[in-house]
């Protein structure tokens, strides 16, 4: 069966789909780290929150209502977190940040259980994306192609913003050297807020997009956290390119590992991570040389 070209195409698409989902999640986390040196372990919980909001709104406004409003709701949640917890802890060092956001995970899991209950929720794929498309000789779900396209589109937009706009230049300057950025007259505080909220919105978007594929459960945020962290550590904290590279590596290793080396699959990705950490402690494509 592995000799069949269709099989490989199908698995490539699966890997790409997983990569793009992880990219949506990790890009926010990594840029927030690069800019603010803040580690948000609750990023996965924001993703879960996005999925729940999308699932709830899908019942009322249909899929697209959730698709557009979930990122906004998560962004609002991110703004609230920013003013209550994040801002005051920015200089508190990695351990305090890790612990506070670790506590936040506990709170988030139980809050979703209280609001949405213990039962998993599922929503349907939007009508336009139902069914499969014939692509390179394989039938592939249109919705999964939509996820791939969306990931690539977000990547494109972010690349454009970072390389071509003034705010992008400011963010790059901030990642490079935040003191210098402040000296240049950039309102660093406002830039942090903006980046944090956009990062949260992207996590919410990832949740909304993932909801029709997966089941929406209280622990989905915890489940996705470790893969997301692996992505950004492999890629190099703080860099957009690193997030892309890390996502692709994770997606492909995970997908092909699962079908070709099932007994090793779960250890494989950690072994790879360990190898990266030994050879390049700062990740493959760190933001700062």
């Amino acid at each position: 069966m592995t000799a069949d070209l269709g099989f490989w195409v199908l698995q490539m698409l699966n890997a790409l789909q997983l990569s793009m989902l992880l990219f949506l999640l990790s890009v926010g986390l990594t840029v927030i780290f690069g800019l603010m040196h803040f580690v948000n372990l609750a990023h996965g919980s924001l993703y879960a929150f996005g999925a729940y909001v999308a699932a709830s709104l899908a019942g009322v406004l249909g899929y697209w209502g959730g698709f557009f409003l979930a990122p906004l709701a998560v962004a609002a949640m991110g703004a609230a977190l920013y003013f209550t917890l994040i801002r005051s802890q920015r200089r508190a060092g990695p351990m305090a940040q890790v612990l506070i956001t670790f506590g936040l995970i506990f709170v988030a899991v139980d809050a979703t259980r209280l609001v949405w209950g213990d039962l998993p929720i599922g929503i349907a794929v939007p009508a336009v994306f139902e069914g499969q498309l014939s692509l390179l000789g394989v039938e592939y779900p249109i919705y999964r192609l939509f996820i791939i396209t969306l990931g690539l589109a977000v990547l494109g937009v972010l690349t454009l913003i970072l390389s071509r706009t003034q705010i992008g230049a400011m963010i790059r300057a901030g990642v490079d050297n935040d003191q210098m950025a402040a000296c240049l007259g950039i309102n660093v505080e406002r830039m942090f807020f903006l980046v944090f909220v956009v990062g949260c919105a992207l996590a919410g978007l990832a949740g909304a997009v993932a909801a029709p594929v997966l089941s929406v459960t209280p622990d989905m945020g915890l489940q996705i956290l470790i893969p997301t962290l692996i992505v950004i550590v492999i890629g190099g904290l703080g860099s957009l390119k690193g997030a892309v590279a890390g996502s692709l590596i994770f997606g492909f290793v995970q997908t092909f590992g699962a079908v070709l080396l099932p007994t090793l699959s779960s250890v494989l990705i950690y072994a790879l991570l360990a190898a990266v950490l030994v050879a390049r402690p700062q990740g493959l494509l760190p933001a700062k040389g």
Partner: protein
Amino acid sequence: MKSTIKAALAGLVTSTAMLTAAQAEDIKVGILLPYSGVYAALGQDIDDAFALGLETYGTDSGVTFEIVREDTEVKPPVGLAKTKKLILQDEVDVMVGVVSSGVLGAIRDTVDGAGVPLIVANAGNDEATGEACSPYITRISFSNQQVNRPMGQWMVDQGVKKVFTIAPDYAAGRQMIDAFTTAFTAAGGEVVGQEWPAFQKTQDFGPFLANAKASGADAVYVFFAGGEAISFVKQYDSFGMKAEMPLYGSGFLTSALYVEAQGPAAEGVITALHYVPTLDNPENAAFVAAFKAKTGRIPSEYAVQGYDSARALVEAVKAGATDRATLATALPKVAFTGPRGDLKMDPATNNVVQPIHVYETVAGPDGLTQKVLATLPAEADPVNGCAMPAATN
């Protein structure tokens, strides 16, 4: 809702005060269920239905049931610690519950050693009523092989000759699938491929579905439960595989608890289970109506297990059991007709003997419902190395 150190102390004071009044007619029941963690919803269903069962059958038993609840958190060591607490500190007469096989495996020796009867209300690992059977462990729910074995012959009878199987890579997943494949190949079918995705670590089944699709099987037979069942059914449908390769499985796949979340993707999936809420019998009609009235939900197989656990306990008490020893001897002898049909216990293993229902998930007037295609006759599990000693205390 659960007893605490404080409450236990307070309870100690009140129970000594009430000792003269209550006497031996009190049966203290320890409930061991997951109230948090991935199986919290299952624990709640069992708990609600157990309470309903006690209300329905227990009021005229002449006995007061005192309930102590403990959360296993679906962690075997926690479950064991809570079991010890129930036995040694609360001194319960009987324990009910256990959702995960891991927890049942962990507490088995303690339960057996202490001689406290345990009514298993879910966990289906085959060993518990096989090589690791105990006169103190009575299973009212099901065994993993029991719900899968009958599908082997039945599917061959329906003309399915080649299957591909997928199940999570853990003990229960292996047992469910192995029971099916053994029966299926014995009936003349062929297993053309198998996949074992990592348990609780797999959210995307796409890679495995691609393998199944390429295998040339007539059908796919799977076991999944909980969130994984929802993701799997939806992803199976999204790859457009339902039309060319019908999806069969163990009935937990399309449990009444999850089927709403699966939506139209679950339509046409054919599975087998020991309970379906649409079973047409008067006991079930009464149960469904009462459970709906109490909780607003349609009862799942987990609910009926809790309900029947309560009934089994009451039947044992009515047969004259009053303490750990007499309950342990009475429980394996109960037999009754409940929502699932005629139930009795197999004296060789203390496992329930019950009919298995093959059902198809279909669209009904108020969303998805279950259409029973066949009811396969009750069949006791093979003894599997169980040498049942007599209860000795």
